[in-house]
């Protein structure tokens, strides 16, 4: 099983590795699951960037305000990539199409994820910012609470 954030893929078919990018090839047997994957990657294409400089480790950047393209990806099956934080980069699929030879409906996809680092290096958290009305101290209200 692979869990990308809150989305679950039962059995990925294969992985391909290109430097720090893992490309996951897989299929799901329900249209809803395919759309759930697509929804998770909805902002990936335009909301992320990878900066490369010769001789250095490429840097992944999540440009979404809420960092929704940064997901904790867990792999629990054999011969798997590292469970870690990944930047969701791209998702490709063919709607309503099963692979040739499939006995049942199968919806194939591929997904690109850029490796950021494991839990040993990163910790999830929040940045509290932009507290409204900090100068006035209170959200203006008639009771002066």
């Amino acid at each position, binding site marked *: 099983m692979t869990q990308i954030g809150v989305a679950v893929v039962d059995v990925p078919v294969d992985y391909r590795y290109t430097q720090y990018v893992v490309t996951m090839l897989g299929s799901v047997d329900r249209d809803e699951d395919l759309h759930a994957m697509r929804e998770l990657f909805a902002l990936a294409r335009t909301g992320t960037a990878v900066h490369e400089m010769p001789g250095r480790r490429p840097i992944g950047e999540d440009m979404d305000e809420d960092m929704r393209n940064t997901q904790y990806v867990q792999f629990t099956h054999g011969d798997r990539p590292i469970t870690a934080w990944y930047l969701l980069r791209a998702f490709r699929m063919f709607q309503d199409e099963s692979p040739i030879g499939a006995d049942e409906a199968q919806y194939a996809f591929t997904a690109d994820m850029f490796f950021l680092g494991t839990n040993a290096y990163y910790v999830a958290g929040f940045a509290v910012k932009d*507290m409204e009305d900090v100068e006035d101290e209170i959200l203006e209200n008639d009771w002066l609470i």
Partner: protein
Amino acid sequence: MTMMELGFPVGATALKITSNGRDYPILLDTDTFDRTGEDGDIPILPLCRGDEFIGESLAGAWKKGWTTTIDADQAFTAIIDSGLLKFKGEADLAGTYGYGWIKSMHVVPMMNETEVTVELEVPINDVVAGNNRAIYFKFFLCQNKVVTERPSLNDNTLFVEIHVTDNGLLMTVAKSIEDADTNLFTGSTYIDGSGVSETADKFTVWRIVFHDAVAGATAPEDVNHMHVYLKQGVDRPTAEGATENELSNSPYDISDILFDVGYPAYQISTQNVDYYDDGTEAVSTYFRVNYPSLFSLKYDFADADVGKSDVELWDGDPDVSTSVQVFDEDHVFTHDAYLQNGLIRLHIDEAIEYGLKLYSYYNVAWNQPFDQLWFNAVTGDEDLRWPVLRYIESISPEKTVIWIRLLNSDTINDDYYLNVRITIERGKYSLKLDNLDVYPDQDLRFWFLDTATVRFGYVQDNDIGDDDINEDGDNSTPTDNFLVAFDDDGEEVLGVVFTDEKPAGGNTRFFAEDGGDLSIEDIDTVDTAGTIIWISLIPFSLLANLFIEAEDATLGGGAARYFTDPTGGSTFVRAQSSAGADNTQTLTIIGSVGGVRTTDTIALNGVAWVNGAVDFTRVYILELDGVTAGNITVQGSDAGAVHIIPAATTHVDNAVILDAINEFCFYPFQAGTHLPEGRYLAVYRVRDTAPAEPNDLQHYVQNATDGTRRNEENDTPLITVTGVYAYYSLVFDITAEDVSGNDFLDVVARKITGNANEIYVDYFLIIPIGDGANLPQDLSHSAMRSFNKPRRLYVR
């Protein structure tokens, strides 16, 4: 007390705040509390944002304590009076100090640039010559949140102190490290060493600003330090308008203090038998906390907890496998939109009447205890109940914002509508509605209710709605900003509505119609865009213990029940009129069978007996739906008399009569088992026989185990009860010690004169107010402190 309700993911551990490179560890379950939702326990960090001391009741986050040496003529009290927090308490014995204090359960991390501002007033600047007269008023930041120990005994504190003796007034700023106090400043003005003064101004405003070390700066700014500023005046307005001076020897080195997350506290100390009393209280008008505009919260969580308690937007019912969670603001919906955070869930049932459906997670299931959430466009009298989703503003695991439109029918057109922005945040029980835009422009009325009866509604200031007696709660000048609805026989949840704007249009009131139908009437046309309304569903499993009929309470001293219960031989209740013309009215009988409230109806048939169907063990209320010409006799099937309803009377109910000195009745309940720790209102529904006897009803809440008072007066106040039924209330506490000791508490009503009037006690009602975490005032005040909390990934 206001807090920033910072919700963490389920399973979060190793919580800490990071600011300016420093870590401030947060202790789970000490500094935080949990809210239980669909995914498990959600840790909430209540970051203290101060208190403006508004409302009927001191916030539940302030816990009280006092020593027995202050418990004499004037016991210790800390009561809000028109926006002022007043402390009272006199020494039991002149020359022996008595102490009283309140301590906050919300933390203040002393981050770089954190500002704490507090106003402190003492009643006098010179207690006149004589021994045993000294008084103190202190404000603390304490290392621990222990309430049973007075703050001045906490080993590690920072504090500001005003000390008044017969020599005059002297102020001190000090730090205590392992119980060793070091004075940083002493003076009667901002000049250090300015000495005790009999004419020093006794109204003061203190501002403390914490700073981290600045490398290379002049000592003490090269280490962790604090600046302290003072405004001082002869009265409150003068002090507020005075020039703020930094204390002459500020800043101060605090690099050696042993805590960096503090709990605020106030303390009075007195060896004086005249101070603090009525008119000579110690007073604070506000206590404010401001944090730096950027700091981080960090935590660990297990792989299995990914996504738990996130805010989620779904295309379709989240419990149905074909639904899809939405991450894209441009998502095209196939099914209805659902918005949820594990505690509450909003279903936008498109173009369906009452289609804004709010659910609460309790009893291991999603429940919809209130099924109507809608507005009324007042001028056109158009009910705006049919929602459609307009668009998604933002989606994140912390906060998701959508826009909807409420229509006046299931026809999607533009004749009448209301655009509303809806926000749900992590860890909050509240749904936020704002940016109200009604077309055509006009006043708006808001409704939150259940189609089934919700018996009680509370709209502040003794204004109670009770459906069983057709009583509306109607308050045009609400003291606080929240409304509460619940039914002691109903769903185990409190329905709460709160707002930032007082209604200024039309009826201008908070309204609880027929009990728990909550309404804000009306939002003036000019206020609609600026008004925010929050709707909260707060699980409260011990709801059944919030109400008791007086006749079911404990009676003593000769107090008697007003009705006679049906005898054991009766198997149903019957009724007849003395007038043959009374054959159109229906008699409703409300009572109980084996303790369960039950209703029966009898259609009158003139002078003939008509039998009911229910074998009541107790009858509470008899109610007619129309005026009768004759007297209506109601009795048990064995002809045992229950009651006669006089002609032209449509409503009588059961009560306890107190008609002689020291007759009493009280509601006993066990702390913890029957109601949890917190601050509550004890509401009495009582009347007197006219003319009312002045100050004849004594009411109080006591710990029956040790006899101490739990109402905020710390005394047994007397009230004059009017000739018609009305509500009277007391603020009281159930303390942690009450709970741990399994103590019984009594809500008591007692007649104290031997005069001939009769006091009728109908029932006792208890309204949960605050516990520093989850109750209506906690949520409604904290909503006035907002923040954004975007998710980040940090390098360890």
